[in-house]
């Protein structure tokens, strides 16, 4: 259980959440990145364009 960095609401991480996974805050919809699992630490997921190389 941890807080959304955007709106402060509670965010529950499911048991098999992985580091690097993105979870959406069900309250404000922000994309959050799992930085650590135990204890759970979330950060804003980076805004990324869908650019690809060759």
């Amino acid at each position, binding site marked *: 259980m941890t807080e959304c960095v955007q709106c402060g609401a509670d965010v529950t991480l499911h048991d098999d959440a992985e580091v*690097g*996974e*993105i979870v959406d805050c069900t309250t404000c919809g922000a994309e959050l990145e799992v930085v650590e699992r135990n204890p759970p630490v979330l950060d804003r*997921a*980076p805004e*990324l364009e869908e650019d690809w*190389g*060759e």
Partner: protein
Amino acid sequence: MTHDYTKSELEAAHEELIDNDLGDDGLRTDGGAVGGDEQSPPVVVKIGGARAVDPEGALSDVAHLVANGEDVVVVHGGSTAVDDTLEQMGEEPEYVETPGGVVGRFTDEKTMEVFEMVLPGKLNTDLVAALQNEGVNAVGLSGADGKLLTGPRKSAVKVLEDGRKKIKRGDHSGKIEAVNDDLLSTLLAGRYVPVVTVPMLAEESRGEGTATEYTPVNADADRAAAAIAGALGGELVVLTDVAGVYEDPDDPDSLVESVGTPAELDAAKDAAEGFMTKKVMAAVEALDGGAASVTVADANNRDPITAARTGHG
């Protein structure tokens, strides 16, 4: 040089492509006159990757253009050849899918080494030699040379893995935002034909008050061609390997000859959309950036470039 594409913009361009029956006509979009000098704008020819060294019609057509006194820049890719070489070295090419459903290469450090070996190495050298054999005074360059193609590093990508959204870091990839057109003009003025490929040189800052560090990274060759055409105000001609629409772009036997059922139509549209979306994006970027015109044409035509430019694609 960034451009946000709305879904309707892409769909509209896509529809035009399909209606135009790509095998006979090219998509031709004129961006209006660029510059005011008496010289015609340079022609920037994008050659497909896998067949970069083999498109004999295209190479002799480049020779015709040059013999007619036109300034030409050739741009090429080579993704398939990178995969082949990775496999020869016992490595698996890595592809990932975005949450939006776009599939693309994830370029880790080892893949980046092989990328440098294959694109500026084998393909570019062989293409330069092939053009020299056609009497074209080709000079090969990558985005690193003279900082020809630069922009920010994109080391994190959002991917869909086992149904979950994740951030994958460590991608050796970047977005082209600037072109050193001086290098190209210098060579063109010297009567040389630049033959350009990726990688680009990505700029990364290591923190406050530290100098920018440059790293060669993967970038899309179609976007490179678009950026170059934009910077030079040139006519962009994109030669595609596909004679029509392939259900699987890597499988020559999956050419969709005709579409019967609604399911077949959807599959064909998806394939065309996936394959052409990048090219449409590149076309729009080129015009946005200053290109005089953009034509997409079939590489398999005889004299494909000339045909495309005169509308006989």
